């Protein structure tokens, strides 16, 4: 395994008195797709949210252990959360475009981070939309509201919005769970293309999806990482009984 992009070691997390993650050790490879699977409430989304510190805002949430991004602890006091999030972008379960135009949706983050000047704006919007393979569908209505698009298009718009900041890592929290099979297929195709440029970590409930798009898979259960490995291996020859039970649908 090459040098990991993100390395999580002995990560424990509490919501109040309740320990949700019990010491997770996992490495995410650069420019690969890693799928996090497991039954509801197993801590996979919580782990994902630790990777760009979205848990910071939750009252009573406490973290121990380390999350290294390119060897640097993202929870260190000298790391700025705003800067971190320009390196680690996030796509959410429910498509959540801003109720503004498609153009404004894309340009918003680069503008607040001062990444773009007036001349470069059009080009940046086009590049981001092309990378998210939605350019052809929206190029004639860039100034119409992003919320008027279909669910699948909205989700790709959100992905375009995330990659407009040029992050290294994209976190996806069940990006297809609100979409129909055709829209899902398009997103999966897109993820396959995006891994050339980005490290992708996605949570999914859909076993087939994990098998189709990911290079590595991590299986969580009750706040523990049960098994982690190459997707093909994990799905064909799981080492743990629990993993086998889960992927064959015997529980969960």
């Amino acid at each position, binding site marked *: 395994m090459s040098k990991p992009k993100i390395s999580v070691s002995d990560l424990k997390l509490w919501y109040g008195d309740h320990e949700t993650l019990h010491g997770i050790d996992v490495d995410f490879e650069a420019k690969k797709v890693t799928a996090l699977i497991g039954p509801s409430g197993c801590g996979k989304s919580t782990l994902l949210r630790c990777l*760009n510190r*979205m848990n910071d*805002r939750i*009252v009573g949430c406490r973290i121990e252990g380390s999350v290294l991004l390119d060897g640097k602890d993202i929870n260190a006091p000298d790391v700025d959360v*705003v*800067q*971190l*999030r*320009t390196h680690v*972008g*996030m*796509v*959410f379960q*429910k498509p*959540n*475009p*801003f*109720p503004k135009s498609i153009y404004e949706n894309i340009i*918003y*983050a680069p503008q*607040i*981070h001062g990444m773009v000047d007036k001349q470069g704006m059009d080009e940046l919007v086009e590049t981001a939309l092309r990378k998210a393979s939605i350019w052809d569908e929206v190029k004639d209505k860039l100034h119409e509201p992003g*919320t008027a698009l279909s669910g699948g298009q909205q989700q790709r718009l*959100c992905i375009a*919005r*995330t990659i407009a*900041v040029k992050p290294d890592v994209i976190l996806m929290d069940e990006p297809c769970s609100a979409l129909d099979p055709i829209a899902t297929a398009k997103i999966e195709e897109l993820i396959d293309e995006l891994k050339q440029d980005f490290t992708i970590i996605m949570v999914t409930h859909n076993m087939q999806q994990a098998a189709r798009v990911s290079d590595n898979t991590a299986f969580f259960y009750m706040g523990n990482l049960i098994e982690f490995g190459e997707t093909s291996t994990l799905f064909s020859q799981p080492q743990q009984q629990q993993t086998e039970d889960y992927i064959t649908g015997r529980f969960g």
Partner: protein
Amino acid sequence: MSLSPQLKRRYRADKRFKFYGLTAIVFALCFLIFFFVDIIGKAVPAFEQAYIQVPVSYNQSVIHNYNRAIPKEYRRLVSKSFLRTLGQKLEAHPELMNTTQEEWALANHRVDQFLKGHEGHGLKKKYRKTVEQMYQDGKIEFRFNTNFFTRGDSKMAENAGVLAAAMGSIMVLLITIAVSVPIGVMTAIYLEEFAPDNRFTQAIEVNINNLAAIPSILYGLLGLAIFINVMGVPRSSALAGGLTLALMTLPVIIISTRAALRSVPQSIRDAAFGLGASSLQVVIHHVLPLAFPGILTGSIIGLAQAMGETAPLLIVGMMAYIPDAPGSIFDAATVLPAQVYTWSSESIRAFEERTAAGILVLLTVLLSLNALAVYLRKKFEVRW
């Protein structure tokens, strides 16, 4: 297939419930209609005012005693407010000296009420024949009552108007807006978007909710104690009233703003935070624009409530006889509802229709404010 008895009973219960609901609505509507018919019926005559044509003799004695300008039999039919101006008029136009002019004068309120056929007009028997004759001869006529909108309060009923009170209301409202909206909105934003959720903020929240339910007269006492006694704001002034009403409106604005902020979907905040926006940017760029219509509506309704409020202003001395529109926020002023109250306690018959007309003016303003709130909400509402 026939319906089972149980199902029939359920349908009957449905029908009964609908009937109760309908009855309640009809009942409420009846009250509303009665209220409006009564108010409008009483107010409409106030928008017409009797004017009388009398011979006015300008001479030296008028300067000292304006009563002498008019023949004795007409003297009581003319408003004193007309007679009072004669001396000044003569000074301004010396060429009128020693002439007699037929002039249209504002009629006394008794004449006005007598001709409108109102009970208790108070016109003496000996004048009634003359007045009726003059009316038939076209020497008394009804004109639109512009005085009602261009003058302040007066002891002469025919001369009393709402201008001073309306100006007072505007000043008070502007001060209330200037103080309560920024403070209320900022408080709500802080509590909703920035403050940690701990015992302290929970205590603040409970207290704000309680403040909204406190009898408004207590705010008057608070205003008296703080603004007038401690800070030395002039009594009866629009400033004192505005600040007091601002205190009263604050909780309403805070609560409605928080509700508006809370109705912004969490997913929008997530999206903005996920892109690396700071807390302030999330609020200013995304949350506030979406919450804006709600904030606006809540604020306008809170302010409309403040505008119709009388009790706290009673305590800070705004229930006063104010003949002239206040020149500044430090001058003694009164407000529309207080004016309505003052008039309603007058014994002269002509004040009754003025009370109703004052209510009508106040209601028009309040309904316009509410209509504005609805319009703005519709206009700025973001469609998903």
